[in-house]
């Protein structure tokens, strides 16, 4: 065993006690794409880096604004105006130098979406709008890559792990296209939801526990209550439905 791997073993000792060396090794071999480096994405990137995911792609075309600082945990006041993807990548590299971090400053859909998820094992949805979510979730479904959907508003949040072939897709949960608007949002909610998304990613990587894949997990911070809502795959869905209903992907069309 090399000195470096001994160092890693020590670094992860407390969580190796949770899922074993084999589990840690699986996490280290898992390639994550975190789409969106806002409230959800920056929380997810932070905890994914600490957990030791071997490769973390961080995709966001935006720059840091003052209004991001109430929830986007990787950024500081001095970062205002800097690209989110690069800044987030730098922040998590400083936390864990043993992982590969790949910032991408392109927006979803400006390059072929399937290229964004090539060589990716799990996608974490940190996006803030549904046109981009549908583009990525549809591509992930077709490329057989699990997509961990998350969203937040105010004190409310939700997570669903979409596992191609076995669970309903995002279109089955959200059939219409919600309006794009500035959402009221608070850091404690994106923190909870981002952590739950990484919990799901750890379970996917290690094969442990039960995924929230046929239910929608709903968080209510105002009442400190969570619910699981069963969801079903829709046979006529044009993404995950029966073969005769499926419509081939068109790039850039949500």
């Amino acid at each position, binding site marked *: 065993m090399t000195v470096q791997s001994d160092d890693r073993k020590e670094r992860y000792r407390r969580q190796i006690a949770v899922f074993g060396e084999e589990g840690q090794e699986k996490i280290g071999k898992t390639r994550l794409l975190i789409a969106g480096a806002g409230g959800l994405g920056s929380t997810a990137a932070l905890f994914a880096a600490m957990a030791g995911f071997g490769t973390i792609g961080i995709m966001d075309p935006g720059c840091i604004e003052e209004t991001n600082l109430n929830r986007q945990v990787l950024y500081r006041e001095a970062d205002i105006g800097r690209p989110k993807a690069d800044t987030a990548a730098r922040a998590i590299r400083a936390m864990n130098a043993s992982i590969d971090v790949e910032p991408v400053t392109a927006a979803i859909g400006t390059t072929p979406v399937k290229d964004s998820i090539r060589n990716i094992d799990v996608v974490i949805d940190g996006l803030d709008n*549904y046109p981009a979510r549908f583009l990525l979730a549809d591509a992930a479904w077709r490329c057989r890559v699990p997509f961990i959907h998350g969203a937040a508003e105010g004190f409310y949040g939700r997570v669903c792990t979409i596992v191609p072939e076995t669970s309903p897709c995002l279109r089955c949960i959200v059939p219409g296209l919600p309006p794009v608007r500035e959402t009221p949002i608070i850091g404690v909610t994106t923190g909870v939801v981002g952590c739950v998304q990484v919990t799901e990613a750890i379970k996917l990587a290690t094969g442990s526990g039960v995924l929230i894949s046929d239910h929608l997990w709903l968080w209510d911070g105002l009442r400190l209550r969570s619910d699981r809502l069963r969801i079903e795959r829709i046979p006529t869905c044009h993404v995950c439905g029966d073969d005769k209903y499926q419509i081939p992907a068109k790039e850039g069309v949500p």
Partner: protein
Amino acid sequence: MRVRVKAFATFREVMDSQVDLDFVSGATIRTLLAELSGRYEGLGGLLFAAPGTMRDFVNILKNGRNIHFLADLDTTLDDGDVIALFPPLAGG
């Protein structure tokens, strides 16, 4: 027949988290939403863009299945149904 309605996220700010309602046979989701809109002030504006026209991004599930893929507002209710109402949280 009795139907259980569960509300989630911001809908809880205008209605109870859970309510049981009784209907006569033949009632539909449209009947249910009219009953709820009459009972809870402010709910109608969240559900409908115009009278009879539901906002298409409002999620209504009947026993886990989105009514958009059933018969929309004309989806019939059955005894013991669980109807879930929730908005599409969008932020990230």
